[in-house]
């Protein structure tokens, strides 16, 4: 069955598939190739970790993303609407 074994994934290919992997949309065969590659590759392990760090850091913007100006205008609009 050696001839049917999926081709090895290169580092370059892994980089193009990392979002599909993290979003859970990678086909089962490619997911196995991805995981087999990453077990033996420090560079790609670091790349995947950097991608996870990026996502985590983006999530930390959630609470601090509203400008005070936008908030004031919105609350003013809300008050006007209630009075009308």
């Amino acid at each position: 069955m050696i001839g049917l074994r999926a081709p090895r994934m290169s580092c370059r290919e892994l980089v193009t598939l990392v979002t599909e992997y993290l979003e859970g949309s990678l086909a089962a065969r490619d997911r196995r190739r991805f995981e087999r590659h990453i077990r033996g590759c420090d560079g790609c392990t670091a790349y995947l970790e950097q991608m996870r760090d990026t996502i985590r850091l983006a999530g930390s913007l959630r609470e601090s993303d509203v400008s005070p100006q936008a908030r004031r205008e919105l609350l003013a609009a809300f008050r006007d609407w209630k009075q009308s």
Partner: protein
Amino acid sequence: MDRYEGSLVRIAMMYVGDRVVAEEVAQETWLAVLKGIDRFEGRSSLKTWLFRILTNRAKTRAERERRQLPLSALLGDEEPEVALDRFLPPDHPERPLGWAAPPRAWPEERLLSHETTEALRRAIAELPPAQQAVIGLRDVEGFAPEEVADALGITPGNERVLLHRARSHVRAALEEYLEP
């Protein structure tokens, strides 16, 4: 309710291409929501409903201003995720297209610094509007992938393409910042 304000403006930008108009659209959306909340039937989540109202209003406004971008402009140009010279050539005898300059783990204490957060914010701000909208909803607001596609009226496949480009760009900008 104001936790969505930034995202609403970002998404409206994607349709109208103008910050002031986008802020107006976001505000009109809130008013429409406040007036219509009793008609909300709970068939979709409240936030998906909110973003549908926004995208409908933004589309109408964009048509009125004749500034709507063609659909082909939505995805933008493809850029490599990582500079191609960081990989070995395809005919390398041992590791074709393997890392020539591999990434390294980022130190946790620098990652959590205020300056790094500002670098991330700048990297998101320089993305094209559609990528900004997708990463804003998916990673900043924490929407599920199908909620992002639904709220923006795009296919799940296009949502992933935009997300991939956005995340790849932001990761590269952080790497540049953390280890120049």
